[in-house]
């Protein structure tokens, strides 16, 4: 399903404008851009926002005691034209015309103005079968912390795959492998995935929840990525 159009593009990701105001794929969702050569580029939604089409115009309060929430859009119909919803995706791989998924960056960015599609269950299942591309998400430095993005992506895919526990297990192990030197970051990811599966994941990576968790995993993680504090756990 077409959900947006590429409005800014680069080797590592792209920005898309939603087809409709306030309608964008959830954080962590897998999206695709069909390329002119028959290949398909895949991205993970890493950020979304709604703001004025003209960056120089800030939104102001429009509500009154009688008119609020959705009714504001009926009383100010121009808002549907002067606001826009945009989202950013991090490119995590592509599939050639042969359909084989590759978990590394494609040689070129997607063309501007091409359609962005939300991936169906079969496509999500095929691309995410092996979680090798998690490294790209773990190294991302966008507005959303990499740990939160990874966790959101794992939740999305787990759901799209019909609550596939085997896949969740493999995903947890992959995260543990990636963050084996950074317990705080790992814990942040695991806690954010789902409290219900936390114990399972922690056991599988031979770490234990406990007093060592101080909630500052994000800070440590950033320091590590920047090369200042990549201290073995």
């Amino acid at each position, binding site marked *: 399903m077409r959900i947006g159009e590429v409005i800014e593009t680069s080797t590592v990701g792209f920005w898309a404008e939603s087809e409709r105001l306030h309608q964008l794929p959830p954080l962590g969702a897998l999206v695709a851009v069909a390329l002119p050569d028959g290949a398909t580029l895949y991205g993970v939604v890493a950020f979304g926002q709604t703001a004025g089409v*003209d960056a120089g*115009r800030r939104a*102001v309060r429009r509500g009154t005691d009688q008119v609020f929430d959705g009714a504001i*859009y*009926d*009383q*100010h*119909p*121009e*808002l*549907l*034209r*002067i606001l826009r919803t945009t989202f950013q995706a991090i490119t995590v791989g592509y599939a050639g015309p042969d359909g084989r998924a590759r978990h590394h960056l494609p040689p070129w960015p997607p063309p501007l103005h091409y359609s962005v599609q939300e991936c169906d269950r079969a496509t999500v299942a095929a691309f995410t079968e092996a979680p090798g591309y998690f490294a790209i998400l773990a190294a991302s430095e966008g507005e959303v912390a990499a740990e939160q993005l990874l966790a959101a992506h794992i939740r999305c895919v787990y759901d799209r795959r019909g609550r596939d526990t085997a896949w969740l297990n493999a995903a947890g192990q992959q995260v543990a492998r990636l963050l084996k030197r950074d317990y705080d970051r790992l814990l942040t990811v695991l806690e954010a995935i789902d409290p219900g599966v936390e114990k399972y994941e922690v056991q599988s990576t031979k770490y234990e929840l406990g007093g060592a968790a101080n909630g500052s995993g994000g800070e440590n993680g950033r320091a590590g990525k920047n090369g200042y504090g990549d201290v073995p756990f």
Partner: protein
Amino acid sequence: MPFDFSRIAAQIDDLAREVPRGGPDEFAPLREAYATVDTGELVARLTDPRNKHSWMPARPDVSFNRAYPAPAAPPDFGVIATDGSFILPDRHSPARFYLINIGRVHLHYGSRPDAHLSSTAELRYREQELQVDGRIPVNATLLGMRRAADELAALAAAAEGVPRPAVALQDGTLILWSLSGQDEAVKGWVLADFLDALERLRERGIPVASYISFPGGKDATDALRIAACDYPGRGLPINCDACRAERDLPACHVIPNVPDRHLFAHIARLGPGERSDVFASASKILREYGEHAIHFFYLQTGTEIARVEIPAWVASHRPHLDLVHALVYDQCRRGRGYPSVLQEAHEQAVIGADERRVVEQLVEEALARLGLVMLRSGKDASKRGRFV
């Protein structure tokens, strides 16, 4: 140092002291004149050809000092507006052209709210577009009037597909003041399209109005000066020259030199949504307008006193007048003190500095393709590449 602020600091303080503050007693004579004006007598004085004066007094249509609350807006209605901006002909460029960009907005309210926003840019470069009547070059003043005609023509075109009831709005004045004293060819170049657009709006049954924020007009206070003149009481026709020759302080001196917005804010004390009476403008250029002569009223928008100008056929048809009153006030409330539709039309029309540069660049590239290297004037080049 290019600009010496210290030199003007003291003058700014003096200037601020000159701004009328409207204390309770400062304008007592004005309050008295406004409350007691005899509309019949005033109209008689304004229409008596023997009276000679140098003011631009407004002629009240019905009465002078009544206030009218805003009528309710209909359940389903539209507002349309156009606004324009231009790129002036550049005297320093070898390519002679100007560009007019017109923004159009239609907002529909009610059971099926909707909005349409668009803009159209047009480059004009033909000899007949650069010179009026083959001899008068189009400068900034002429282009301003041409834009006004183009905006109104676009408004009339936009009105064709808009369901009624609807009001068509413009920003600024409908009175082409700067057309006075222009060559007849220039008048024709602007007025033919301008009046044709007004006529099309009338035929379409969509009242048109223009909106002036923070208006500087003094038409109503000028009319109070005519009312205050003591010459008719002495059995003489009004004659400002004779009066000035006769004495230092004329009888009309009691009317302070303040804009109408002050009169309707502090003396008439219009409440939010209320409008003043409707007046006819005395501008001489309106003699050329025929049945589209411009009338106006003042409106308390909730944040300020604005001036709303309308053609005679809107002023004299109460349903049109009430619709304009209701919808302009409604727009001001939606737009936090300024009509939303005008705000959006402006946004559509505006040509940003980057866009201006792109137009210039495209023209240069087109010339280059034909082997013409764009040579700029020395003065222009020095402004572009500033050095020390």
